[in-house]
């Protein structure tokens, strides 16, 4: 018996509309799948809100009597924190080990037989998940922020659409990172090491623990252009609070776009390398 290519080439070039239909069907099923966990969503919102209060008060103390720190005023800090707590669940930095689990158990074989490339189908599922999360997890903290605190509302009309685009790109970038971390299971079986490293770096370097503007300027710039982490939270939030003038805002989203494209390409490359060496166990 000859060798069998695990991934069938998707029929993208022959029929683009069909590709889009498949893609949006997977997005929809991802949305519905996560919409069933409503209790978990409520518990998550409560937790995000507690951390919202904590971080807001701590950053406010850092701003001190001047009420200004690293280019943020009090209202901007409030928006940064509350939108940030919501975004955390939308980009879903933590807790995704589905791919690694499927690689370890061998269930990945079923994914490889499907006519859709695994990177594409997992991305579509993740976009569906993010869609539900932006309703169930992003809106509530933003509303709490609006109710309890004096938050910064964007002043330029272009900011909101730009923010939406920036969040979408953040989800893609985060998915790319998580896919790569999970894909190390093709080589390592146990992904705990890479996962721990990812969890640590993503929290701090994405701007969750403190806005990266609190760091020295050269360090912030190195992180922003040299690593994908600020693209996860810091950049969308900076876009939302209009920390920079409009052209710079667009430039930041451009940085995200670059990371999104690069990471997706890298995911496909890693997937191809993995398939070449992979042996699925079992009969």
């Amino acid at each position: 018996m000859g060798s069998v290519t695990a991934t069938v080439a998707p029929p993208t070039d022959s029929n683009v509309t069909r590709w889009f239909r498949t893609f949006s069907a997977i997005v929809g099923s991802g949305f519905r799948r996560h919409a069933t966990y409503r209790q978990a969503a409520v518990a998550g919102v409560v937790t995000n809100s507690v951390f919202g209060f904590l971080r807001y008060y701590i950053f406010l103390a850092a701003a001190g009597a001047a009420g200004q720190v690293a280019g943020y005023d009090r209202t901007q800090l409030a928006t940064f924190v509350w939108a940030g707590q919501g975004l955390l669940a939308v980009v879903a930095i933590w807790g995704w080990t589905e791919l690694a689990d499927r690689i370890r158990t061998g269930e990945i074989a079923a994914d490889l037989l499907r006519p859709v490339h695994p990177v594409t189908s997992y991305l579509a599922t993740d976009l569906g998940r993010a869609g539900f999360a932006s309703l169930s997890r992003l809106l509530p903290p933003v509303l709490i922020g609006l109710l309890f605190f004096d938050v910064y509302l964007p002043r330029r009309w272009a900011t909101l659409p730009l923010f939406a685009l920036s969040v979408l790109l953040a989800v893609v970038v985060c998915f790319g990172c998580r896919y790569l971390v999970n894909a190390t299971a093709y080589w390592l079986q146990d992904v705990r090491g890479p996962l721990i490293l990812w969890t640590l770096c993503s929290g701090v370097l994405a701007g969750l623990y403190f806005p990266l503007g609190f760091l020295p300027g050269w360090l912030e710039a190195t992180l922003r252009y040299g690593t994908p982490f600020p693209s996860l939270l810091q950049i969308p939030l900076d876009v939302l609070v209009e920390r920079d003038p409009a052209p710079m805002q667009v430039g930041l989203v451009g940085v995200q776009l670059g990371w999104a494209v690069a990471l997706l390409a890298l995911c496909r490359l890693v997937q191809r390398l993995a398939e070449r060496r992979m042996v699925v166990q079992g009969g």
Partner: protein
Amino acid sequence: MGEQRQVVQAYRALLGAQARSQAAYRTSFVVDLVGNVGATVFDVVTVLVLFGVTRELGGFTLRETLVIVGQSSFAFATADLLVGNIERLPRYVRTGLFDAVLVRPLAALPQLLLMDLPLRKVSRAVFGLAVLVVALASAGIQWTPGRAALAVVAPLAAVVFFGAVFVTTATVSFYWVDSGELANSVTYGGRDFTSYPITVYGGWFRALFAYGMGFAFVSYHPALALLGRADPLGLPAWVGWAAPGVALVAAAIATLAWRVGIRHYRSTGS
């Protein structure tokens, strides 16, 4: 007497099996040790970064704040090492493993804790202790016998307090299976809350966490007593010495909550 020795032996067997199984994969274990210390390191780094943009936080200098951070990091990491595993209770309840625990002739709580004692978290507790010792040494504390005693007792009381918080929040899963993240808001939220002087927080949020749940006695009030500072919020100085009492009350509440919770427990499986 003989029966008691048997029980101790059973627990020791559980612990020994745990230690051997975790150390069997040596590389993984080392990675875990290093990874776990990272989280606590970043908590301290966050404080340093904040002091990079401001000279004082809520009226406290970096050195004073570090005493609070050290106390909180050490206590949380140690409690997490000893009792933190209980946060897996929701999964045990959901998968029905808790039934197996209940039918064994040993108490449920110690079994749960020993069944999966995360030895990898030792690194965190050690790091937390190092921060605490360095902070105490560099804060310019005027040592008296009383303060020296408090410097030893208060962290231990805080460990008991966090342990009680872990157990109490975990019992929520007896009533609400999907509550995992809810417990995080009090356990990890409590850790973050106690890492800063409570003067930075405001309004009812501070009142709820500091005195409603008692987190002010973990690090803030003992640190004030050690530093010899008056409370900017106006509580008398002896409050700093009340930490052990608060920890005992918390432990009593946790015991009660656990007993009531177990009695309420109904298996999810069929």
